[in-house]
């Protein structure tokens, strides 16, 4: 019959104390980080230790108590599936937020709900034409009419310039802020952290704080683009396998992926502005994709939102800044064409009221009053009969007020008809489009925010710190610590009795 060593139990008690201590420490760390962004709740991984009798050939015919507890590590409480869903939704919301803010900018250019704009000015122009038709030969009224026409052209200029400004702002944000400052910094940060984490893990450490930092960066990156995060096992030694984390751009439409981060390697993005088309390219230092244009590859995130706003021409794609610029150009060129034609009595001797500053095709940006009209307010043809009547003014009023075909190319009546209706209809239709889009994206954004908040809450319930839970743990571990100390006392007393008092009777 064998006996366990006398002082073995002291070690068991010591480990018990250590385990409780570790639990108290981790609980304390959790409580300390209750408000730390990105912090993941930690827990002590512990298991009991057997006396090791299982491997002996012949089992000992005696009860063998365990040797206590072992603290094997401190790990994080995370749900990778929730992480993936959260990031998907974050990239959706990133896209929607960007689009919504861009649409609000565009809406405020055209909207006349609280202010007067082109619609109002067009009505004023018609009314000044009406006044001119009362006394068509009056030079002072002709002057006022021309001023009203000038206001119409100036507002068109302003609209066009503002749309261009909004677009340029978006290009600046995309290129300087989002891609250079945020995206590229974040992928580099993730790659750096990959390196550090790998080193720590190779030494057998668990770099929870680094993991938190990396997770936070990945969360933030997912707001910028739709990404896919994969974790592959990497075997370091026979006994040690660590995770190899890769991040790639994921195109939901095609299912294709482009590598962004793999271990310490990373690829950065850059923006090229080709006028009407802004492209995003990748400088590929590793992975399957070659360097070059990957504009079509973004299926989510604010980058996609920016690209939609910047490049969207509205035909079979998003109605972005270009759509509104083109729409105003079509309005301006057709408006000028209709009135220029009416002002011209003899086709061989055109009398344009409106021209393009600098010549060429008329656009909303360059439309202005013709030099001839500027020089002489009565250049406007009031009558086609050579009298002082106002029949031609009525013709102009009717032309502005009745249905017109808006040609894609105003000078070419065989080009596509983009819209049929009055000039007012065209404009209020345009305002309606941008307002409806803004309304729609507001709804999308609200929904997406709700889903994201739900996912956030679900994730928090797993990874977040709950003070109640930690408080209860603290009390429990305090008790277990006390119990372990009590165990020590018991052992101490037992050994004391064994050494000092056993076998001394009758001495």
């Amino acid at each position, binding site marked *: 019959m064998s006996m366990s060593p006398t002082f073995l139990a002291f070690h068991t008690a010591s480990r018990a104390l250590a385990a409780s201590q570790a639990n108290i420490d981790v609980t304390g760390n959790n409580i300390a980080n209750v408000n730390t962004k990105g912090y993941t709740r930690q827990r002590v991984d512990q298991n009991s230790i057997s006396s090791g009798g299982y491997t002996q050939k012949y089992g000992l015919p005696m009860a063998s108590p365990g040797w206590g507890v072992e603290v094997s590590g401190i790990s994080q409480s995370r749900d990778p599936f929730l992480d993936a869903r959260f990031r998907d939704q974050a990239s959706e919301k990133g896209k929607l937020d960007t689009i919504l803010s861009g649409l609000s900018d565009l809406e405020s250019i055209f909207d006349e709900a609280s202010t007067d704009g082109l619609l109002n000015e067009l009505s004023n122009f018609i009314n000044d034409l009406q006044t001119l038709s009362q006394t068509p030969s009056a030079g002072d009224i002709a002057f006022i009419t021309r001023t009203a026409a000038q206001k119409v052209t100036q507002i068109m200029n302003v609209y066009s310039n503002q749309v261009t400004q909004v677009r340029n702002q978006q290009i600046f944000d995309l290129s300087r802020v989002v891609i250079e400052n945020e995206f590229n910094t974040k992928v580099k940060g993730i790659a750096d952290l990959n390196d550090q984490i790998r080193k720590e893990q190779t030494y057998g450490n668990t770099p929870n704080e680094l993991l938190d930092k990396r997770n936070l960066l990945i969360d933030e990156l997912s707001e910028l683009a739709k990404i896919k995060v994969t974790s592959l096992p990497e075997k370091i030694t026979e006994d040690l396998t660590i995770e190899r984390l890769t991040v790639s751009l994921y195109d939901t439409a095609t299912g294709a992926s482009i590598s962004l981060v793999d271990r310490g390697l990373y690829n950065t993005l850059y923006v090229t502005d080709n006028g009407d088309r802004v492209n995003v390219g990748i400088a590929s230092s590793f992975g399957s994709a070659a360097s070059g244009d990957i504009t079509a590859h973004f299926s989510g995130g604010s980058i996609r939102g920016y690209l939609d706003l910047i490049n969207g021409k509205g035909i079979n794609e998003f109605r972005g800044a270009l759509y509104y610029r083109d729409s105003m150009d079509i309005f301006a060129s057709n408006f000028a064409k209709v009135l220029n034609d009416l002002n011209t009595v003899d086709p061989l001797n055109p009398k344009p009221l409106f021209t393009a500053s600098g010549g060429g095709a008329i656009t909303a940006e360059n439309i202005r009053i013709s030099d001839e009209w500027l020089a002489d307010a009565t250049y406007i043809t009031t009558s086609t009969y050579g009298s002082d009547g106002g029949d031609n003014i009525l013709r102009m009023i009717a032309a502005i007020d009745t249905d017109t075909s808006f040609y894609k190319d105003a000078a070419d009546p065989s080009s596509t008809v983009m819209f049929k209706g009055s000039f007012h209809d065209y404009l209020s239709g345009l*305002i309606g489009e941008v307002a409806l889009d803004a309304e729609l994206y507001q709804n999308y954004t609200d929904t997406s925010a709700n889903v994201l908040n739900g996912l956030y809450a679900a994730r928090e319930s797993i990874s977040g710190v709950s003070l109640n839970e930690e408080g209860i743990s603290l009390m429990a571990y305090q008790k277990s610590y006390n119990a372990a100390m009590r165990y020590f006392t018991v052992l101490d007393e037992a050994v004391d009795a064994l050494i000092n008092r056993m076998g001394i009777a009758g001495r």
Partner: protein
Amino acid sequence: MTTQYTRSLNELSVELNRLNTQVASGRKFAKSSENTSAAIKAFQIRKDMLKTEGYQANVAHAKASLTDAEAALSHIEELMRTASERILFALNGTQSGEERKVVTTELRNIRDQLFQTLNSSTSGSYHFGGTNTTTRPFEIVGGKLQYNGFSLDLPLPADTPAANEALFADLEKDSMILDIGLNTKFDSVTGKVDESTVFGYSIAGINIVGRGTVTIGGEEFSNNLYDLLGALASELESGSYSYDKADALFGHFKTATGSIGKSITVIGAKTSYLEFMAERMADRVFNMQERQVSVEGIDPAAAIIQFESQKFAYTAALQMGSKIIQPSIFDFMS
């Protein structure tokens, strides 16, 4: 928990702000995207209101012009009545040649006044020139009255009577026109204004004075008020005065003055039509204002109640803020 709280506080204050703007501005929406369909309706109403304002201004202008023209026409009518009385006085067989000469002077005087009144204008625009408002419509050329540069005798030249007739028909119809919301239309071929879709508000002078010629005793006379008065004056002072000839001329003169009354009647009809249109437009504006309020405006009572209840909710949420950091187990540990 705090994230949630911050979000709901934010939502509440956004809504509070929106309601505040509503109450302050009296408008349902500040941006179209808040209520796109109402905004588009509102734009339509605003456009229609401005359009009607344009029509109202046109109606007012037409009415003022017609009133001016009517005053001038009444004066002409008065002049012609005086002329008739004087002619009747002169035609009386008991009058001596001296007395006829006095009437002659009076008639020439009246004729000059007629000429001036026919060329009367308001703010630089002639009343009776049709679409010619900048040059004097009536001129005396070779002792005869001309209208807008055309001789009033017909046929001239003799070989193109049909063309002349068409020309005079055009001159008679020639009128300043305005758009008063009758949906202006144009001939698809000639591009001419469809007269039934606009409002013609000036009287062409040719309708007042008459035109053509008459033959009395083998002699041809211009059949218009001015020339007839002249011919009568000449006959009355003539040494070879003939009662029959003078009486025949007077007959034509009486017939010609009938057109003045006709023109005044036309003006009366036009004015009452304008009054009818003005009333209708005032009604339309009123209706549109009501619609505008219902589309764009808020019900102040409802908005203020909503605002107050939102304010209450917001205040309640703020008060709750002090309790948002909920007690935890730590508060009960000893």
